[in-house]
């Protein structure tokens, strides 16, 4: 055995694809980490007032003193962007979590029960989906005083539908697997089958949907705020920043819209990149490649 091992020269195959994947994951991971660190650490460390008005320095282009420039009342835009990102991220994560929990519960219930319960629930989902998301969101927000929580509720209410569909489809396909038959034959109750066999199987899919939903929810929040319906104007979110800056864009001042815009795009792309890599990982086909 030993002498045979010496004379063998081993060749590796197909490593190229993996390295670009690693690069993508690392870049996305670094950007997401940077975002999270920024929103968590910058406010307590810098101790500056993001609301500090300095009318003498209004609408200044980017400079060393104000890297992102200042807005129309002279507030530092970098600071405003970080605070805005903080609010947007909070809304995004809270809404995505709520939507995922509701969607998973409804989808799993529909899929596990089947029959008329399934049909009723899915008709409800269809009804909700038939109303344009933004319209439904506006309707919900309009019922409350402007604030963070109405926006979270509005975004969650419009986004649980897709998760419910994904989870239901997954549960339905899993329910036909012989291992569910085996569990039923082994005396497992409906509850046990759902909790022990079905939910753990859909959990990765649901979690992935949740991560992918965070950017979605952030965009939705921005859209509502841009329309002036989401967060009150004094609360810096990325949406309100762009909304309040749209007048200056016409006057040729690009920085008050560009930087908040980038702050929406970059973290959402990074999150989507991480989620995509994760999806490849949990895709069972990749695992079966390694099987002998």
């Amino acid at each position, binding site marked *: 055995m030993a002498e045979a091992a010496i004379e063998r020269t081993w060749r590796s195959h197909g490593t190229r694809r993996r390295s670009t994947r690693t690069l993508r994951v690392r870049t996305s991971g670094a950007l997401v980490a940077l975002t999270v660190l920024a929103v968590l650490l910058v406010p307590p460390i810098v101790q500056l007032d993001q609301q500090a008005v300095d009318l003498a320095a209004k609408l200044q282009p980017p400079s060393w003193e104000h890297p992102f420039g200042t807005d129309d009342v002279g507030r530092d835009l970098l600071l405003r962007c970080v605070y805005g990102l903080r609010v947007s991220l909070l809304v995004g994560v809270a809404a995505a979590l709520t939507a995922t929990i509701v969607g998973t519960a409804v989808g799993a219930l529909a899929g596990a029960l089947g029959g008329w319960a399934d049909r009723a629930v899915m008709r409800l989902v269809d009804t909700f989906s038939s109303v344009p998301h933004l319209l439904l969101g506006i309707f919900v927000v309009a019922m409350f005083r402007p604030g963070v929580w109405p926006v979270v509720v509005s975004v969650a209410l419009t986004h649980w539908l897709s998760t419910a569909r994904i989870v239901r489809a997954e549960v339905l396909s899993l329910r036909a*697997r*012989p*291992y569910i*038959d*085996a*569990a*039923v*034959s*082994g*005396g*497992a*109750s*409906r509850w*046990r*089958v759902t909790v*022990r*066999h079905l939910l*753990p*199987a859909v959990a990765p899919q649901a979690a992935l949907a949740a991560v992918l939903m965070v950017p979605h929810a952030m965009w939705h929040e921005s859209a509502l705020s841009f329309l002036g319906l989401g967060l009150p104007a004094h609360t810096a979110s990325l949406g309100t920043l762009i909304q309040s800056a749209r007048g200056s864009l016409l006057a040729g001042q690009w920085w008050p819209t560009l930087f908040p815009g980038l702050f929406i795009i970059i973290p959402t792309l990074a999150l989507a990149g991480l989620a995509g890599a994760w999806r490849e990982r949990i895709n*069972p086909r990749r*695992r*079966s490649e390694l*099987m*002998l």
Partner: protein
Amino acid sequence: MLELRAITAGYDRRTPVVRDVSLTVEPGEAVGLLGPSGCGKSTLARVAALLHRPDSGTLLLDGAPVRHWRHRAPREVRTAFGVVFQQPRLSADPRLRLDDLIAEPLRATGRREEAPDRVAELAATVGLTPDLLGRRPHEVSDGQLQRACLARALVLRPRLLVCDEMTSMLDASTAAALVAVVEDYRRSTGAGLLAVGHDRTLLRRWCDRTVHWDDIARAGGPNPRV
């Protein structure tokens, strides 16, 4: 004793795959059901194990008619059957380690404390070594996984075993080993067996009586596509 009378079943009421099929398994008897693939014999096996509700027909277990299937069937009736399917990969929850897989029916029926002893005993019976018991399905071979699936089917000491193409994915030696385990179990408990398959040689060797699908299904059933 298991009696299937005039069973019609399928996934679409207009085109049932099983039409008017009758079959009896006497106490302690081993019946082999032979048929080509796609003829509906697996559906019949699921009906027999109370896993698929037939559109019409009667199923008698020890003379008493069964009226409910799947979760609606009383637990002690459901667990009177042990089932083994063709594809071990699809029959095992990919997240459970093999020892949990085997013990799952005990836990589901509230007999958790019996699990360690029973799993150790059955693992030895089906020939699984302790280090395999700590692995998940994707870390073992098809043959090893099917051994665990058979152990799971035996863990509640069923009165009837339903084996649907249990050995068709396996090599000759593993197939012979699993059949030997089933036969040992039947000899010590007197359990009945319904073995469904397409291998005439295997079923004739294994079972007391072999019936062909064409002989128990009403003529004019769905003709298998060429």
